[in-house]
């Protein structure tokens, strides 16, 4: 796609723009200078590292699935529903986006923790959530849900309701319209929303350490491991960080061509 620009940019803009780019790229790139390539492989394949990576991938996949399960209906209701209560709800859903994750962790703890709002009922059913892998998934879902909802809601609004109307006039029930027309048309938005949610889950730290703790094999995900290693084994921390950078770059590559967000 070529784009014609007839109005020139002010020259002074390029200085700060270049600086901003360097500010992002340089710190990430500098990590690679801190570590020898030979050590890298052994560091990222240590038992603790592998267990954290596997746990991270598992919990992030689970939370992405949970985000889809809950977020698709929510986004659809927000984009298509009618009602005065939708405005406030839309703002509330964004809360985890602006809240410090550690506050999210405390909020979850006060809901699902042993002393929490639902803790008693869950305990009676023999369910313990806090400080388990389930807690990791819940913490990740809490912070990732807005990414999926915003992305999908935007896609639904852009797609508009015209195809839905035609489908209904052809005799399709609301469920059929949603399944065969509405969602297939916003598949790119849905996919990029899911990828963003997965990326956010993978990087989740604050809510996880507050609500799930940092137990190796159960709740110590990659970011938590990196935080732990930071003091004891700086090289390993850098190596694991690079793994996360690689995943992040991959995610950006997946999402960007779609143009959403």
């Amino acid at each position: 796609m070529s784009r014609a620009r007839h109005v020139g940019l002010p020259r002074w803009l390029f200085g700060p723009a270049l600086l901003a780019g360097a500010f992002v790229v340089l710190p990430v790139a500098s990590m690679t200078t801190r570590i020898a390539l030979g050590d890298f492989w052994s560091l990222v394949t240590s038992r603790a590292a592998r267990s954290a990576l596997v746990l991270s991938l598992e919990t992030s996949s689970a939370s992405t699935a949970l985000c889809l399960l809950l977020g698709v209906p929510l986004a659809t209701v927000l984009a298509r529903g009618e009602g005065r209560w939708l405005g406030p709800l839309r703002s509330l859903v964004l809360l985890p986006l602006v809240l410090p994750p550690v506050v999210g962790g405390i909020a979850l703890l006060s809901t699902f923790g042993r002393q929490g709002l639902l803790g008693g009922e869950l305990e009676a059913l023999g369910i313990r959530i806090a400080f388990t892998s389930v807690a990791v998934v819940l913490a990740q879902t809490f912070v990732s849900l807005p990414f999926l909802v915003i992305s999908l809601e935007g896609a639904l609004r852009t797609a508009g309701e015209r195809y839905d109307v035609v489908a209904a006039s052809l005799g399709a029930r609301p469920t059929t319209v949603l399944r065969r027309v509405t969602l297939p048309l916003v598949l790119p938005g849905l996919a990029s929303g899911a990828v963003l949610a997965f990326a956010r889950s993978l990087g989740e730290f604050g809510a996880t350490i507050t609500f799930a703790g940092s137990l190796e094999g159960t709740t110590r995900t990659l970011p938590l491991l990196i935080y732990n290693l930071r003091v004891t084994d700086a090289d390993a921390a850098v190596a694991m960080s690079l793994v996360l950078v690689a995943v992040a770059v991959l995610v950006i590559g997946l999402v960007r061509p779609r143009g959403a967000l």
Partner: protein
Amino acid sequence: MSAQVEVVLAERGVDVAFEVADGETVALLGPNGAGKSTTLSVLGGLLRPDAGRVVLDGEELTGPGRWVAPHARRTALLAQDPLLFPHLSVLENVAFGPRSRGSGRRDARATAEHWLAEVDAADLAERRPTQLSGGQAQRVAVARALAAEPRLLLLDEPMAALDVAVAPALRTLLRRVLAERTTVIVTHHVLDALLLADRVVVLDGGRVVEQGTTADVLSRPRSAFAARFAGLNLVAGTATPDGVRRPDGLVLHGTPGDPPPVAGAAAVAVFRPSAVAVHREPPGGSPRNALPVVVSELEPLGDLVRVRAGELAADVTVASVTELGLAPGASVTFVVKTTEVDVYARPFEHR
């Protein structure tokens, strides 16, 4: 499947009622904002009126305390834009209606193939909507609407987005498939009304100002819009014994038509633009009507030129345009013989 429609929407100032007989095609005509599309939306169940009823084949679809959801109405909608589902093939698009109504995959496919053949688009079955031209896409959209076996077909300016070169073919196609089918079509094109509609309902300002068979309304319009739509001149005023008196006092003489005017009541005088002669100076001689006008625009019309002067029009040759020096702003006189002017009573407007 006959339909009765009453629509009242206070907010949009719409208050419309008409009927569609079984197998009949009714054209809704009227200027923009007259309430045509609103009426169509109410029929399709996309809009809930403040008051009124939609009864299709004896079944009340919309009414006091009654509401049938759009998907359960069997009123397929075909809009200006074909809106083929972009993620489905042409065949899957046409099979969508049958599938949604519970047909098996194979049956739906057979139905879709039948309707695609019916609109001469069988060879397009495996294409994606993006690979179709505008005319092809609209043909497929027609097949898709018909495959849903609608009891009432709603067409919202189906030809408006098409190329002038393509529209006639689709019009011919619609003429064929709409025969014996209960249909309401919104259109801005006189040919659509002439070729597709059995009856026309003229809306203006949210009211029905005129309705009747297409031939009647287009040959003897009694509303300003229908006259313009049919390409006829219409002068409204009060009936005199042998003509119509305009509000400014000018009297246009003519012959009474059916329904005949009642002296002193509202009436309209109707005459063809081709019956109008254009003069620079008011001519003498009495069996003629002379209307002083100011030319507002000239537009080509085949090998003639249509001279518009406000609401009135005259068709003259290119030679006379040069001869008379006609141009927007020129003061001229439109002259029309009394035998060319029909005068009708005007029962609908301003009711």
